[in-house]
């Protein structure tokens, strides 16, 4: 791992050093979601170990957000969800509402893309954080106020004491995202799901938030799932990365390995399509065609029509995730690719 900051390295070593526990923190098995008969998620197997930072990347509509919304029962009544989501062995799908409420924000916290609309406009920021403290830590009144202040300071909100009494519209996007993070930390969760936490933010603010997430994850020792369409963001923060396409996981590997030696043609394509920040400029390798619509998926491998390696066999059946290396899995019928490195 040539390029990691100190804190990243620390996080990596900690996960490695603690020897991967036998039982994952969260284990998702064959999770499927459909909306009014249209499949959005077509069978996801995924596990998160305690303390690790996992990235989930993919393009719009690939199901990366829906996976976790479904896992926490946050999809509307139009969604049909099947499969299994276990939190340290406890099944969450179909769990009673009271149990889910205790898990949400308590064991598993979530932050969202657009902090401006994700915070309630009519309540003070302090109140919104204190609500989580009351629900999950039983703190009331002055104790809750003091803890909220501590959290605000922890996530780097300047003038925190005064900001507790502010409303979301009085804050910038970056500050609101810090409040979201403070709110997520309020329940001292074991897992933080960050759903495109920096997509709506400017570049320099994005850097601030990513730094904060990295720090907090290392400090609190919690696991994190970072959902993003930006490979760079995920590469920065995560030790393990999953790539999704059209409602399925197509590749899953340690971050460094995934970016250095991608196996699935789609991952190769995504990396080839990214311009470099340094070195000579080269013509970008674009993936032809476009992402299929959820209701109109091709038969067999959904990526086959855009894939340079596809054969007739690819349309015959949906490939399953298979091990292609230590802790490295890919779902492609043509593996190993004839000339993967070239792509």
């Amino acid at each position, binding site marked *: 791992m040539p390029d990691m900051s100190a804190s990243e390295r620390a996080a990596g070593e900690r996960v490695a050093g603690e020897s991967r526990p036998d039982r994952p923190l969260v284990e998702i098995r064959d999770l499927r979601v459909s909306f009014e008969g249209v499949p959005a998620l077509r069978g996801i197997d995924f596990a998160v170990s305690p303390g690790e930072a996992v990235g989930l990347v993919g393009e719009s509509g690939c199901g990366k957000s829906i996976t976790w*919304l479904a896992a926490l029962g946050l999809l*509307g009544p139009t969604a049909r969800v099947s499969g299994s989501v276990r939190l340290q062995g406890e099944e969450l799908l179909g769990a009673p509402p009271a149990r889910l409420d205790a898990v949400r924000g308590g064991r598993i916290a979530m932050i969202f893309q657009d902090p401006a609309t994700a915070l309630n406009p009519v309540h003070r920021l302090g109140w919104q954080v204190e609500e989580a403290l009351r629900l999950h830590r039983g703190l009331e009144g002055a104790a809750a106020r003091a803890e909220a202040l501590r959290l605000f300071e922890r996530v780097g909100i300047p003038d925190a004491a005064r900001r507790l009494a502010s409303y979301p519209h009085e804050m910038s996007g970056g500050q609101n995202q810090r409040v979201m993070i403070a709110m997520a930390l309020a329940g001292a969760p074991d897992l933080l799901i960050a759903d*495109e936490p920096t*997509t709506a933010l400017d570049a320099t603010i994005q850097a601030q938030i990513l730094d904060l997430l990295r720090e907090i994850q290392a400090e609190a020792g919690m696991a994190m799932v970072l959902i993003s369409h930006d490979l760079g963001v995920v590469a920065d923060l995560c030790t393990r990365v999953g790539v999704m396409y059209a409602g399925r996981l197509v590749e899953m590997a340690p971050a460094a390995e995934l970016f250095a030696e991608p196996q699935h043609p789609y991952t190769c394509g995504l990396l080839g399509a990214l311009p470099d920040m340094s070195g000579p400029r080269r013509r970008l390798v674009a993936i032809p065609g476009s992402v299929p*619509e*959820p209701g109109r998926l091709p038969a067999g491998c959904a990526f086959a029509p855009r894939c340079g390696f596809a054969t007739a066999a690819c349309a015959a059946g949906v490939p399953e995730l298979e091990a292609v290396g230590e802790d490295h899995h890919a779902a492609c019928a043509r593996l190993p690719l004839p000339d993967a490195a070239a792509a």
Partner: protein
Amino acid sequence: MSATQIDGATQIDSAGQIDGAGINGAGIEGAVVVAARQRRRGMPVAVICALVWLAAMLAVALAADSLRPYSITAIDLRARLQPPVGFGGSLRHLLGTDELGRDVLSRLIESVRVSVLIAFGATAIAATFGTTMGFIAAHFRGLVEQAVLVLIDFQASMPFLIVALAVLAFFGNSLPLLVALMGLYGWERYARIARGLAIAANAQGYAAAVRQIGARPLRIYLGHVLPNIASTLIVSATLSFPEIVLLESGLSFLGLGVQPPMTSLGNMVGFGREYITRAPWILLAPSVTIVLTTLCVSLLGDWLRDRLDPTLS
């Protein structure tokens, strides 16, 4: 009201450099549901019934002269207050007769024509006037826009029935005045919609794109903006059409709308009220017609809104 304050402040880099905010996240679920909906094209039974009723009303309005069994003023004093068929009446007068022996069915047919024509005329006037005002506000901005907004505010904050009654008190009553008055009803909704959507299209959308191609304002507003917002305007019209019917029938009921010898639905209810105990059919026939018609247009409007324009509340 608050809209003015908000768009005054957000002119800088309205390009919205928010990095692909729409691509990911919560939008997905919606997109999938929409995709699912688009595949099921069908019309609920209630909407079909509504359409049939409305088509019948329209046919009655257009062909009133040939459908009417009697003249609306044909008085038959020997056949006064005859009940409808099925309640002891004869086939000569299907819906019975009124206090002067006039055929209720004939008067109902004529009333439908008058009421429907007034409602259509008024809706057309309101839509045209309101949309024009909205476009003017969106195009000129600044003081012109503020003036239009004050007018919109005024119109929306005064109960229209009171204003209409005041105008009728001052000017007396005539059919053209009544139609023009009804035509002022609800113009502010079209103006709001037209202004809002035109500003959005101008800010960063198809209208801005066509403008920078070099098209003239008339081409932009009539050729592009109007067709694009037409569905929203039509939905809005179907929602305000029944209100105009109600307003006209209310005025006529009070004796201040359509004047005798002309007749309209509200007018019939108003005069029939005197005989509510002895001959309720005089008032029930037009009442049922009003309720069914407004109900059907509302059903159609709601359905159209769900189909065409879920953003309109």
